[in-house]
């Protein structure tokens, strides 16, 4: 047997001894352990994939249902200030959360923007409170700006304004005047009619004419979902 001399080249001798003493894993035992491990790993992986498929399916169903007006008719027709309005907004937010970034998300944001415009038109016809009108207008602009985010800068803003103008033009005369007033207030950044609503400190600036989207609408008769309609605190969505 080799003699070990601590003073002479211990390293190689010890390395050889350690390597030689290692208990090797026989191939059949390696396969057996592998089977044990992989039965759990494969099952977990399949479950994880199933969860992903399920989530995508839920997302697809949610999007489809929302786009087709899956929110109950009453909620879908609700306006800011209505009890069911928050259901409508939460539904939109949930849909935005599950939509992948990209064209589908932009299209859905545009759909939301059109809804906001319709709401404004209906609110003006119904003689809605000025504060609610202003808040609805801000929401419209925030959402439209995000929907047009891809075109960026003034293009998006111009497109949003054009869309808004359609709502103004289609409103009957008394409502049109009120709507124009709300737009002027919003353009001037005036807190005017909405003062006292407690909603002017909203933090989701969105690039729409330098305005800020309102934060939670306490005191305004309806509450915002926890995530702003733009979904990203104002940055334009892709």
């Amino acid at each position, binding site marked *: 047997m080799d003699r070990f001399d601590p003073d002479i080249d211990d390293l190689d001798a010890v390395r050889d001894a350690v390597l030689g003493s290692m208990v*090797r894993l026989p191939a059949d035992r390696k396969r057996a352990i592998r089977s044990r491990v*992989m039965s759990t790993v494969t099952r977990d992986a399949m479950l994880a994939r199933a969860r992903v498929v399920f989530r995508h399916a839920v997302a697809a169903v949610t999007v489809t249902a929302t786009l087709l007006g899956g929110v109950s008719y009453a909620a879908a027709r609700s306006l800011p200030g209505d009890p069911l309005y928050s259901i409508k907004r939460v539904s939109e937010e949930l849909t935005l959360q599950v939509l992948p970034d990209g064209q589908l998300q932009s299209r859905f944001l545009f759909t939301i923007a059109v809804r906001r415009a319709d709401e404004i038109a209906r609110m003006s016809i119904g003689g809605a409170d000025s504060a609610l009108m202003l808040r609805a207008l801000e929401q419209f602009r925030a959402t439209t700006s995000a929907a047009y985010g891809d075109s960026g800068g003034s293009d998006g803003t111009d497109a949003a304004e054009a869309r808004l103008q359609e709502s103004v033009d289609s409103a009957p005369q008394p409502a049109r005047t009120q709507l124009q007033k709300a737009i002027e207030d919003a353009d001037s950044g005036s807190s005017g009619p909405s003062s006292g609503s407690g909603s002017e400190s909203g933090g989701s600036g969105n690039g729409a004419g330098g305005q800020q989207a309102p934060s939670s609408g306490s005191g305004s008769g309806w509450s915002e979902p926890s995530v702003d309609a733009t979904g990203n605190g104002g940055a334009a969505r892709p």
Partner: protein
Amino acid sequence: MTVLAERHIDRLVAKSIAGDARAFGKLYDEFAERVYAFVRGRVGSTEDAEDVTAAVFLKAWEAIGGYDDRGLPFGAWIFRIARNAVIDSYRRTSRNSDCAPVGDAPEMADGSMPVDESVFIRVRVEETLTAMELLTEEQRSVLMLRFVWGFDLKDSAQALGKSEGAVKALQHRAVRSLARLLAEENDDG
């Protein structure tokens, strides 16, 4: 054992993180023998060693989603899991690890080896394992990492959570101690 390129390991790890069971199976193929060798030297029986080895890879699978390849190399990461699994095994069984009995000696001889040579090697293996039992846990770990797992100083340091200088000193002490113990055994024999 096939030594896959580090980048190949990284790819397998990335796929495993994404939930690819087959990629994780290849990681098992790559590291199973090293993990087993480390574990077997510290638990009392081959059955326990196989159980702990399986537990190491199951734990790795559970935790791989949180693995960050910008920090610990995968080998060092799984070594840490193995080391913790051995400690857990100690606690569960409340017994100290014994060296592998001679009857459990590694398959170091093929069928063509003369019997006397096979016995000679087994005796030497037993002596080495007995001597290694007298080392500290850290000294055994550093010898395992450097000589069996093939880690460099940097990876060994990361696996043991020590500085490279500390690992270098630890290795030096381990080598000197083991060499002295083996020399003493030879003198006694």
